[in-house]
């Protein structure tokens, strides 16, 4: 246990966790989200691909997946907003003995819905799903997905063969969706038997245009009140599904400056509203025309509006990774974007206006937020 300065926040405050290639930072503001304070870094020198502030069940628990390039990955937790960190020993987010695999990175720490206040999911590289039933203190491997018959054919994307997205059932049921680069979207109804769910997603980087699996899904998100409706950012193409991945329909192809990008964020308050952050192409992964703009649909993907007020609009060749964009749960939603050039931008009004919250941080790997209860 190492004592450090903690995040100075109280009930009602918004906390934005910023995971970077060199440690964890935190931004804090009141509910109006105008006056931000930066704290950190924690885990100096370590890559923070995954972070969460879990405010379910009366707790305010920070969970962090940190990877040291020398000493490997670990999951830490703090119940005093970063003042002290606990690293379980033996490390429980690890493959069981005899599997012959080792966790390289923790890509996602995803608390389940309020109906399962002690359940936390973790996605790792090599692509595997772990579940905790004690709020992130211990984890166990999902054997069904690990033993999936497709696994030998899954190919790693640029970030490795990683399970980076977990879509739990907000009602607390066993249904679950996950995304792997580059295997695609998989879903289960019982928590153990998994099926590929990529019908309709084109894979222009594969010889077969519409394979059962092998798609490079970059991110998936959904509205909590409409859990069957998913938005998905593919390696090329933005998609929507109204049946939890049973089939996918491409949206925005004629309206977005590019359909290549990494993150997609569903508005937590308005079903049918979602946000993407297009990049020029897979060969030039920077914002088009040197302008950082978020695109928003309010009609399920039929039309898209560019939102750039307050964001850099000249010579801004910016990259935002799959977890570099998130929304809080206030209304209107606060949006937060972290860039690979170390800047963080925030909007308190669902993208209508933006301000710079931090600059000159290390490259941002993930941005996660929660409102303290």
């Amino acid at each position, binding site marked *: 246990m190492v004592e450090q300065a903690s995040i100075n926040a109280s009930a009602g405050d918004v906390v934005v966790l910023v995971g970077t290639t060199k440690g964890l930072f935190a931004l804090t503001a009141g509910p109006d989200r105008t006056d931000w304070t930066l704290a950190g870094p924690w885990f100096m*020198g370590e890559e923070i691909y995954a972070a969460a502030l879990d405010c379910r069940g009366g707790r305010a628990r920070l969970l962090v997946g940190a990877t040291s390039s*020398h000493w490997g990955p670990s999951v830490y937790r703090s119940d005093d907003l970063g003042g002290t960190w606990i690293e379980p*020993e033996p490390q429980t987010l690890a493959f069981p*003995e005899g599997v012959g695999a080792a*966790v390289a990175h923790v890509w996602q720490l995803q608390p389940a819905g309020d109906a399962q206040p002690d359940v936390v999911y973790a996605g790792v590289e090599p692509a595997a799903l772990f579940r905790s039933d004690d709020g992130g203190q211990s984890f166990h491997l999902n054997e069904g997905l690990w033993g999936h018959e497709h696994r030998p054919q899954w190919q790693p994307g640029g970030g490795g063969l990683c399970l980076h997205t977990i879509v739990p059932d907000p009602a607390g049921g066993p249904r679950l969706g996950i995304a792997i680069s580059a295997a695609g979207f998989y879903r289960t109804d019982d928590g153990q038997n998994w099926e590929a769910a990529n019908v309709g997603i084109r894979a222009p980087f594969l010889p077969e245009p519409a394979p059962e699996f092998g798609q490079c899904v970059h991110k998936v998100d959904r509205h909590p009140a409409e859990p069957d409706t998913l938005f998905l950012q593919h390696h090329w193409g933005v998609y929507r599904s109204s049946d939890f991945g049973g089939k996918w329909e491409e949206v925005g192809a004629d309206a977005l400056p590019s359909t290549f990008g990494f993150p997609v964020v569903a508005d937590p308050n308005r079903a049918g509203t979602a946000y993407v952050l297009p990049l020029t192409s897979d060969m030039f992964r920077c914002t088009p025309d040197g302008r950082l703009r978020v695109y928003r649909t309010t009609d399920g993907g039929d039309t898209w509006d560019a939102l750039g007020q307050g964001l850099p609009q000249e010579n801004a060749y910016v990259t935002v990774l799959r977890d570099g964009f998130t929304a809080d749960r206030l209304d209107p939603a606060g949006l937060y974007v972290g860039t690979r050039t170390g800047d963080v931008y925030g909007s308190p009004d669902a993208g209508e206006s933006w301000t710079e919250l931090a600059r000159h941080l290390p490259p941002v790997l993930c941005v996660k937020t929660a409102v303290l209860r």
Partner: protein
Amino acid sequence: MVRLAAALRQHAEGASSVDLDVPPPASVGAVLDALAAAHPAIGRRVRDESGALRRHVNVFVGADNAKDLDGTDTVVPEGVEVTVLPAISGG
């Protein structure tokens, strides 16, 4: 005796070295097993859960890098120190 890199000492109550009771002839793997049993947080930083030595960690037997010898099968001669150090790498 195993000498520890400065970055590992916080996981051994600040000690710069650890005396381990490993009967000779001991392999590097056996020494690391004993080190992990005494200090699990160091054990998982030196080897992953599959037992593989981490890529950017070097274990020296005397002045020789075990990776240049027989890896974790390298025999540690009686009285020779083992040293665990981070490799010169990173970004």
